[in-house]
C-alpha cells in the first residue's frame, strides 16, 4: 500500500498549502457561562433535600403534639430532649 501511494504522497506533501493567512477575530467574543446549568440543578437538589428533611421533622413534632393532646398530657415540646424517645413512649400508650 505504501508503494501504491508513494508518488501521490510526495505530490500531496509538496502541494500542501502552507501560506494560510488568518485575520484577527471579527465580531464579539462570546461570553461563556461555565457550569451554570449543573450549578442550578445542584442548588435545586440541595434545597429539595433540606425542605424534605424539615418537612419530615415538622410532621413528627406535630404527631407528638397531637398525641399529647389526645392523651391530655401536660407536655411542652421545648422541654423534650429526645423526640424519638417521646414519640415511642406516646405511641406505646
Amino acid at each position: 500500500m505504501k508503494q501504491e501511494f508513494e508518488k501521490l504522497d510526495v505530490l500531496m506533501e509538496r502541494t500542501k498549502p502552507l501560506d494560510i493567512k488568518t485575520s484577527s477575530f471579527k465580531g464579539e467574543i462570546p461570553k461563556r457561562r461555565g457550569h451554570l446549568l449543573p450549578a442550578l440543578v445542584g442548588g435545586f437538589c440541595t434545597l429539595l433535600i433540606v425542605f424534605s428533611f424539615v418537612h419530615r421533622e415538622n410532621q413528627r413534632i406535630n404527631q407528638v403534639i397531637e398525641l399529647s393532646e389526645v392523651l391530655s398530657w401536660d407536655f411542652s415540646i421545648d422541654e423534650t430532649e429526645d423526640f424519638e424517645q417521646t414519640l415511642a413512649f406516646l405511641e406505646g400508650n
Partner: protein
Amino acid sequence: MLQLGKNEDDFLALYSEYGKNIKRLLIGMTGNEAIADELMQEAFTKAWVKLPSFAFKSSLKTWVYQVAINVGRDWLRGHKNRNLDFEENSLQETDIDKKSVQEALSSLPDEMREILILFYWEGMDHREMARVLEVPKGTVKSRLFTARTKLKEALLIKGYEL
C-alpha cells in the same frame, strides 16, 4: 499545552493556536477562502461556548477540529448544489501542481475530501482522524484507502504519472 480560562485573552489564545489549521481545513472542505474565513469564526465561537462540555476524552486540538468539521459539514449540507472552485476563490495558486491537486480534491465526494485533508494537510494519524471524525479506526483506514485511490485516479486523468 494550551491552558484555557474564561476571559477574552484565552479565547484569542485558542484562536491563534489553531486558526491557521482550521482555516486550511475549511478551505479544503468548502473550496473558498472567504467562506472558510466566515466558518472559522463560527467554529471558534461554537468551540468556545461549548468548551465547558469538553470532557477531556480527547485533546483540545481534536475537539476544535471536531467542531470545525461539523460547522463545515453544516455549510456543505446547506449548499448541496455548490460548485467547488478552488481556482477562482481559494488560495489563488500559481503553482500548476497545487491547482491540479485542488481541482482533483474538489471533484471528490465531501467525505473523501475531508479525510484526505486531515491526512495530508493536517498530518493526522489514523487514531486522531478517528476521533475527529467520530468513526472507528477501521472505518478511517478503509475510507482513507478509497479516498487516496480516487484522488490518484483523478490526478491520473490530469496526466500525472503516479
